[in-house]
């Protein structure tokens, strides 16, 4: 049986929870669909997990905010579908979902908010599929949700604020770090001077916290290598060593049990693409993001995107953008008038702008070198189907060189992750091979089901659901 809602929110992180609560407060009948077994997204992951007591003591966690929102969410009358995969959004506003037992059902909704969050930018390098290599985000989730830390020697590589955050959390949880390998483009100090005043003015606390983290890492005498290039993970069957070149061009070869990589966050765009929404290329953030109006409504009417899935801004920005989308939905569905909401709208807009004020400084301090995305021929681009860069380049020369065709020729992006990891590296690689702009190439097409679906799960859709 299809169930009817005023609003279906996909994703129960800060943006999704904030959107759901705001809409529910305005009197809308709301459902939230979440893949994970508990709400909170990756930021609040662990807040009500089995290691919650340890979690609350980790540096950088926002325990009070998490418990405030999660408690309100739990006590609301919002329908919460946890461990549920949304895999199709139809043009008539139906969301097709499969639960953990493999039963599929339809939620019919007047409006939809996608709050599916960010993902870590994939930057393939030699050996990145070896067990022992994982992302920094993965390491942080392991720690927060399960209280698990890596064995020494641990190397962290990449750029962006998450590395320093995880480093101090790992140190606080009894881990140690062999070294940090900083990649990325040289910092433009002119840009720093341009972006710093606004950041200090709007987010002094955040900058203070960042400096404290760096000082803590220094104090523990973690080795830091700057302007690192040519990182390789080595080992047979699992990671055993890491090699890299430092700023002087000297090649190092170090023992490693675990290598964690992080090259920044990008919006996860698969759901919005599958629903027919259009994307644009963001040259400063070096990622695709959905084209949205000031409320977060996409090019598909009635389909909103909020939080990091819309634009990377972190948890605070996500809370406000989620609320703004929900307020707009409340107006569109006739639950509130713009005049009555004017104060709330002004408040959330102002806070959203404040939260985003840090971002220009962050992207100035941590920016990808585009060459990092042009790996050698033998580097695997598509982990799922084991397709390397050389195969992709050769295949692209025999045809149009467009992502969809290369996907068909080589199976890049046809594996279990449905191209979530290789879509961007593929387009960047094709752009550089064919001297085209990434914006013009776009990403390959994404269709429903935008999460893998077993045939039995599809067959279990009830007949009354009447999909159009």
């Amino acid at each position, binding site marked *: 049986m299809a169930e009817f809602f005023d609003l279906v929110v996909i994703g129960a992180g800060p943006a999704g929870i904030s959107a759901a609560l705001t809409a529910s407060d305005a009197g809308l009948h709301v459902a939230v669909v979440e893949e994970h077994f508990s709400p909170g997204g*990756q930021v609040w992951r662990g807040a009500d997990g089995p290691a919650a007591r340890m979690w609350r003591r980790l540096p950088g966690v926002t325990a009070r905010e998490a418990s405030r929102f999660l408690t309100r969410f739990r006590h609301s009358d919002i329908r919460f579908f946890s461990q549920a995969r949304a895999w199709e959004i139809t043009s008539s506003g139906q969301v097709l979902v499969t639960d953990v037992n493999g039963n599929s059902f339809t939620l019919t909704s007047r409006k939809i908010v996608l709050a599916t969050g960010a993902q870590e930018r994939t930057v393939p390098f030699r050996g990145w599929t*070896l067990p022992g290599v994982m*992302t920094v985000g993965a390491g942080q989730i392991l720690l927060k949700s*399960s209280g698990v830390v890596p064995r020494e020697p641990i190397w962290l590589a990449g750029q962006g604020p998450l590395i320093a955050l995880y480093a101090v959390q790992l140190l606080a949880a009894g881990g140690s770090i062999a070294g940090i390998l900083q990649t990325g483009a040289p910092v433009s100090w002119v840009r720093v001077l341009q972006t710093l005043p606004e950041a200090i003015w709007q987010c002094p606390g955040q900058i203070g916290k960042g400096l404290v983290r760096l000082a803590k890492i220094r104090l523990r005498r973690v080795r830091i290598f700057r302007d690192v290039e040519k990182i390789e993970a080595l080992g047979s069957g699992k990671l055993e060593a890491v090699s890299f070149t430092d700023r002087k061009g000297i090649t190092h070869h170090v023992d490693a*049990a675990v290598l964690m990589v992080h090259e920044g966050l990008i919006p996860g765009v698969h759901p919005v693409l599958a629903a027919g929404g259009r994307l644009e290329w963001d040259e400063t953030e070096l990622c695709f993001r959905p084209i949205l109006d000031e409320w977060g409504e996409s090019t598909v009417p009635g389909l909103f995107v909020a939080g990091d899935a819309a634009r990377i801004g972190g948890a605070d920005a996500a809370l406000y953008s989620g609320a703004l989308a929900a307020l707009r939905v409340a107006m569109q569905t006739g639950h509130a008038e713009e005049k009555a909401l004017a104060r709330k709208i002004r408040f959330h807009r102002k806070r959203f702008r404040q939260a985003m004020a840090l971002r220009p400084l962050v992207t100035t301090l941590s920016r990808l070198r585009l060459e990092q995305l042009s790996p050698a021929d033998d580097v695997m681009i598509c982990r799922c189907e*084991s397709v390397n860069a050389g195969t992709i380049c050769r295949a692209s020369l025999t045809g149009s060189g467009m992502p969809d065709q290369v996907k068909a020729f080589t199976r890049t992006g046809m594996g279990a992750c449905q191209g979530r990891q290789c879509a961007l590296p593929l387009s960047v690689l094709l752009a550089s091979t064919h001297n085209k702009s990434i914006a013009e190439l776009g990403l390959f097409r994404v269709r429903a089901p935008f999460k*893998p679906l077993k045939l039995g799960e599809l067959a279990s859709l009830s007949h009354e659901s009447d999909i159009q």
Partner: protein
Amino acid sequence: MTVNFFRSPFAPPTNIRVMVDGQTVLALAGESVAAILLRTCDGPTGHDHAGRPRAPYCMMGICFECVAIVDGAASVRTCLIPARDGMNIQRQNGPYPLPDISCQGQAKRNG
């Protein structure tokens, strides 16, 4: 055998038992099954369809590198599954096992 992950000294004590490839493993109720695999397996927590060693990469449901057979269900993303007492976890190596839906299989089941 050296595993690459262990429990933080500040993590709460284990309170359940699960099976990993037939071996009993102590675990924490509600930790992710992927976390158990990481601190039980020496390196690979599974192998892809071409037989290459793999292990959880993203821990947030994106990469599908953590798939395993949990209580008989194949190809589930273990980073999204909370551990429960008595859970039976098997590493998935090579092509995903398909259920037996042949006529003989049906006949066998129906007696």
